[in-house]
């Protein structure tokens, strides 16, 4: 644990130094951090659901869910490079720019650097504490899990608005946090499914996952996908219906030109194709095939993040936007592996949460 913590601090320091030297790196770091933070948050959400409703699916993936959830405090530390150079990322740190338009000026009290950092600190600490308590082995904690879900869905709106939407402060939409959180749930569960397919049947600590159980994991992926699709589309529909210039203005660059093609790829590859694939039992009942669909969903979740972030920043897409998330992802997977340690990788039904 000390080793992982030390490695995380070194990584944060290196990223902060690189971010100071290169704005492109810092922008890529924000994307990478949002991606893997989202994956860990998705794991936290499913861990809460298992604490609340139990079920054999949860016993199977509990060790993986717990290890992924326990990376949240580490990811919280990796916010430091962003916190140290806010001005590079967020245009509202420039007071003159903020006062130039009346709508932005009205948001000046909220878009204050110190207030922003305080909000981020509180949110990340609260998430980390909840994550560590829920990831502990042992008894079921339905009360704490319910509290954690309420707190998470209340705070994720603030987090999403602060960290992503404030890149373009003219936009406001109340569904943004929920749309991001459900997308994170898809990404987190996809990571779990991929991990299951990689390790199951490989050792005594990772028994084979039977088709019935794989089907349950696939059904949950399908459910998370449906929820994300519904909320993400509803957000668009409400903006389309109201047709207010300040909201439509945020969507316009994302629906025309190259980003418009990306938007259609989200419809096709983040929703329609996985939807049709996950309807099929032969795919859901095979961990390997299910993991292929999950890999598509995890990749498309990152494409969605690019689609949300890049049109709002001054910088075009660069190779760092691919390299940094991959690098952070490898480090994150390594941290998960270390946190799993020598314990079980895949749980057995008789090891369900109440019987430990």
């Amino acid at each position: 644990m000390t080793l992982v913590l030390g490695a995380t601090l070194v990584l944060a320091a290196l990223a902060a130094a690189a971010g100071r030297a290169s704005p492109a790196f810092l922008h890529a770091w924000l994307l990478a951090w949002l991606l893997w933070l989202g994956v860990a948050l998705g794991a936290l959400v499913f861990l809460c659901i298992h604490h609340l409703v139990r079920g054999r699916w949860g016993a199977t993936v509990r060790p993986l869910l717990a290890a992924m959830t326990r990376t949240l405090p580490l990811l919280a530390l990796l916010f430091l490079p962003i916190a140290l150079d806010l001005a590079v990322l967020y245009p509202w740190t420039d007071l003159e720019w903020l006062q130039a338009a009346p709508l932005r000026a009205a948001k000046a009290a909220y878009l204050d650097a110190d207030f922003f950092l305080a909000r981020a600190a509180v949110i990340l600490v609260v998430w980390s504490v909840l994550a560590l308590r829920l990831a502990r082995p042992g008894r079921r904690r339905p009360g704490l899990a319910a509290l954690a879900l309420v707190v998470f869905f209340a705070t994720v709106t603030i987090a999403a608005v602060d960290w992503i939407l404030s890149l373009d402060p003219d936009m406001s939409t109340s569904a943004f946090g929920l749309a991001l959180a459900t997308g994170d749930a898809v990404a987190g569960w996809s990571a779990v499914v991929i991990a299951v397919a990689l390790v199951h049947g490989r050792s005594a600590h990772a028994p084979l996952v039977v088709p019935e159980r794989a089907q349950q994991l696939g059904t949950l992926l399908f459910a998370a996908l449906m929820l994300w699709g519904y909320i993400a589309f509803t957000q668009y529909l409400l903006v389309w219906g109201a047709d207010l210039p300040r909201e439509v203005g945020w969507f316009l660059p994302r629906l025309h030109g190259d980003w418009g093609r990306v938007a259609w790829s989200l419809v096709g590859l983040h929703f329609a194709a996985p939807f049709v694939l996950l309807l099929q039992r032969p795919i859901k009942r095979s961990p390997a095939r299910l993991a292929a669909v999950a890999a598509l969903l995890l990749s498309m979740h990152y494409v969605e993040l690019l689609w949300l972030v890049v049109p709002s920043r001054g910088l075009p897409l660069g190779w760092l936007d691919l390299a940094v998330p991959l690098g952070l992802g490898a480090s994150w997977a390594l941290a998960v592996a270390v946190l799993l340690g020598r314990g079980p990788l895949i749980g057995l039904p008789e090891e369900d949460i109440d019987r430990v």
Partner: protein
Amino acid sequence: MNGLRGLLAEFAGADDVLAATRAARRAGYVALEVFSPYPVEGVAEALGFRTRLAWVTFVAGLLGGAAIFLFQGWVHAIDWQLDIGGRRSFAAPAFIVPTFEITILAAALATVFAMFVKNGLPRLHHPLFAVPAFERASQDRFFLFIGADDPRFAESTVRAFLGSLAPLEVHDVSR
């Protein structure tokens, strides 16, 4: 013997009936049915149960969704055009939510009614109901039924076979 519709073995637990079903399949019986108070995982596979109901669900969902989408298009773009905030009359984004809902409704209704038809419902009586113990199939007992229409059915051998599976009791089901 002529009056027999089949034999019914009664078990106390889900695992017992599952093991019995697998044994009956291994013994070559095909006219099998399992009755249990709740769905027992693995029984459908043990019975070799196959159904095309999923296709009914899928096709009905597609047809229902397409119908309501096109219907909305016809109403708004052809039959009764209204200028709503200057948007084009074929307002596809606005049609999506009803399309989603009706897809689910059509798929669900078609599945339920196709299931009724395939199961021969509605039906007021079945010979199984004449067995008094069968009432507990909806409470706490698990039953394996071997029908007399099975090509390998011979009363004495089937009775001995079911007896060898350690049931609580073997009941006669008359026509």
